[in-house]
């Protein structure tokens, strides 16, 4: 695993994130280059709208530069921090927009995209391969529950209502699906560590 390659979003150096909030132009630029693609993809997936996704990212990066949001090493990797911020802001925006029609099928196939692997760091490609494969192996109902929770911010009760399913069934699907993902990812993490 080439986790140390410079441009992988999944391998942003914590020092880059810390220096970005301290007025270091070069570090900020590198942080943007490494993270913007996956953050924008996440925001577009949640909001289903490129313009709004752009606004979310603009506010986020300016917040990083102006130190309104700060990276703390104790809270995980830089990309985990940025993804969490992007997700929560995009979901907040999604909820506040009453006119929005939620994405019904949880699919992102209609979003224009680059061919997988192009302009993508090897470390990110490896992660994409393993998570995509694991997700595709999940039963459709489990994958759907995870996507509704993760990308639309729905609670289990809301998912149960949306799908007209018992709450216990939805909770079990979420738990089982995530546990399977965890099991599959463990082998990848072990391999990544040893590399």
């Amino acid at each position, binding site marked *: 695993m080439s986790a140390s390659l410079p441009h992988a979003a999944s391998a942003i150096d914590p020092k880059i994130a810390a220096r970005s909030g301290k007025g270091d132009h070069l570090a900020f630029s590198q942080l943007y280059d490494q993270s913007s693609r996956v953050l924008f993809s996440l925001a577009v997936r949640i909001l289903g709208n*490129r313009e709004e996704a752009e606004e979310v990212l603009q506010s986020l990066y300016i917040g990083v530069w102006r130190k309104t949001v700060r990276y703390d090493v104790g809270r995980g990797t830089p990309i*985990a921090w940025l993804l969490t911020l992007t997700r929560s802001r995009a979901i907040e925006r999604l909820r506040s927009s009453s006119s929005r029609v939620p994405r019904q099928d949880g699919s992102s196939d209609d979003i224009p995209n680059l061919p997988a692997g192009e302009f993508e760091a090897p470390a990110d490609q490896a992660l994409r391969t393993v998570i995509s494969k694991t997700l595709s192996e999940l039963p459709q109902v489990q994958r759907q529950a995870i996507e509704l929770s993760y990308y639309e911010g729905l609670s289990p009760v809301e998912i149960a209502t949306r799908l007209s399913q018992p709450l216990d069934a939805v909770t079990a699907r979420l738990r089982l699906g995530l546990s399977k993902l965890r099991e599959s990812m463990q082998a990848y993490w072990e391999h990544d560590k040893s590399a």
Partner: protein
Amino acid sequence: MTHEDLADSVPLYAIGALDKPERQALEAHLLSGCTPCRTALKEFQSVAVALPFALNLTAPPRGLRAKIMGARAQESPEESGSPSSATPSLEPGEWMKHLIPPTTASTTSFGWALSILIVGVLGLLIFLSWNTSARVTEDVNKLAELQSQVAVAKAKLATIQQQLSERDEALVQTREELQRRLDELTEVKDQLIHREAELDDLRTQLMERGGPPAQLP
């Protein structure tokens, strides 16, 4: 809630799918130092971080980078560049000094006066047109700055709201802990009262047997 229930809620916590009471219960459990649950949470959080990597990659618009860098760069010129720094060399008075060397009253003729007047009017016109366009540019810059300030203020507000919510949760936990301690104290107090009553009984029994009053604590 049993440990099994709490452990079962870890994956849901990692993707933010727990309700407040369940979330607080798990957080209290994690704070109590349960290592297996903490390890599981880290792994489930890593799964949550990996999920967006399965999405089809969408490159952000080229303009976004420029917008962000522009909003960032605006800070320094806005702070350091005041309108007065650019105006002095273009003031009509300064123009006059450059164009016409100082002269005495005796050498001034009607032609000179006319030239001075024309140059003055031209200078004034150039200054006015420059000033108007500079103001428009300045207003546009200010507007962009205000927009970015609004965005930053919104972000700050969201952060403050989050912090307040975290503090509320901590307060609720402290209250619950306090209540638990109070309950324990009440229980201890009841036990003491009970012991005291038992001692009184023993004293009475001893008195009835006619023995000397015992020195009971």
